């Protein structure tokens, strides 16, 4: 349950930063946020994930690619150092992991957890960030617009302290998301090459090789 909650927040942060048109961000205007979110029909982005922990001398770097097509098709793909792919759409979610040189479906609890996570995506795609009682969101203006999401319930205690989403005011693009698990453990995801409303081959959401 705690694991699922963590994944939910992680994914929530990911989708929040990817699909939120930053020009609409306003502390009290979630209705407008929902309206602007509806304008995005597709999205692709590269991401670099930096995992920092006390046990590591330097961040562990992972990278991959994210795809979205309205209303609910998602491909979340890690390529290095370990490959994994999550496909979600039409109410179904499948996770694929490498085995014997090919990708096979992960039928363990991890896949079920991802299904729970991505099952909520439809709501997030509609900009319903303020309807999740698991956290509160605040916005701070600066060189970057910083959205801080803080868990409200005790069920997150010891798992996640906060999520920070940085949005560039210069070019209105989302720059990064930082998930702080504890004082000695955090995950920073930097997004690059974000492209919206460009056609994506439907096979991207169906085929894993």
């Amino acid at each position, binding site marked *: *349950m*705690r*694991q699922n909650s*963590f*994944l939910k927040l*992680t994914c929530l942060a990911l989708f929040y930063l990817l699909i939120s048109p930053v020009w609409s961000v306003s502390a009290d205007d979630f209705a407008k946020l929902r309206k602007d979110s509806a304008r995005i029909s597709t999205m692709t982005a590269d991401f670099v*994930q930096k*995992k920092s*922990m006390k*046990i*590591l*001398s330097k961040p*562990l770097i*992972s990278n991959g690619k994210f795809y979205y097509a309205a209303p609910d098709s998602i491909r979340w793909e*890690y390529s290095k*150092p*370990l*490959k*994994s792919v999550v496909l979600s759409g039409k109410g179904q979610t499948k996770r694929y*992991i*490498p*085995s*014997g040189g090919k990708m*096979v479906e*992960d039928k*363990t*609890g*991890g896949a079920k957890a991802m299904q729970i996570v991505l099952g909520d995506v439809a709501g997030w795609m509609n900009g319903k960030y303020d309807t999740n009682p698991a956290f509160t969101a605040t916005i701070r203006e600066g060189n970057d617009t910083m959205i801080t999401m803080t868990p409200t319930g005790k069920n997150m205690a*010891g*798992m996640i302290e906060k999520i920070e989403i940085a949005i560039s005011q210069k070019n209105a693009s989302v720059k990064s998301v930082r*998930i702080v*698990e504890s004082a000695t*453990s955090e*995950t920073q995801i930097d997004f690059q090459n974000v492209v919206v409303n460009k056609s994506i081959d439907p096979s991207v959401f169906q085929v894993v090789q």
Partner: protein
Amino acid sequence: MKGLCFLISVFLLASCATLPAIQEPSSAHVKEPILCPFPFLQEKTRFIHTIDVQAAGQTKAVMIGVTVADPASRMFSCAIMSTEGMVVFEAVAGSEGVKVIRALPPFDKPDFARNMMDDMELIFLEPAGELVEKGVFVSGDVVCRRRQEQGGWVDVVAGHDGRVQIRRYSECGALKRTVNMDGNSRDAYKTIELRSAGWLGYSLMMTLIESEMVRDMPPVQK
């Protein structure tokens, strides 16, 4: 009741076995003294591996594991995380036992931390027990056998192909773990296979992402 006792006796007998016999080397080998295989760490080192967890011949999970092992103090730090960066388990182990820092289900089960640290010790550190026998197996593979202080036995075997195998047995000689690695080379930890014996046996296929020596900072002079 008699039937139950019989079944328990059969189970206990089946759980035990005879340790593989170690022989004197043949005359062809006697020219040189037997050197015990030593694939183990000699300096404090940090490893990052991908871990492929298999059971019944099928991949069940893939994870990323971080291990810092210090042969001098026999201390370990371990962390397991998902591809997505979620840390599901973190613990340290040393002379004072195992301290779990973080353990999410199913890694919070009783004995998981202790068993995992025992496995890491088997892979990375020279067995602590007394060397009781060395020689060769029937196959001709060189083997050194140690008696573990906490009970049980550990064989370190050098195969003809240059690979090293580590086997841990229970007190009564039942095989519990088998570790296969590349050998005494600096690439010994490039690929590691750990197999757990028994009805619920599993295997871990560990593939090295990166490793580095760990230099502890000297204490600050005041």
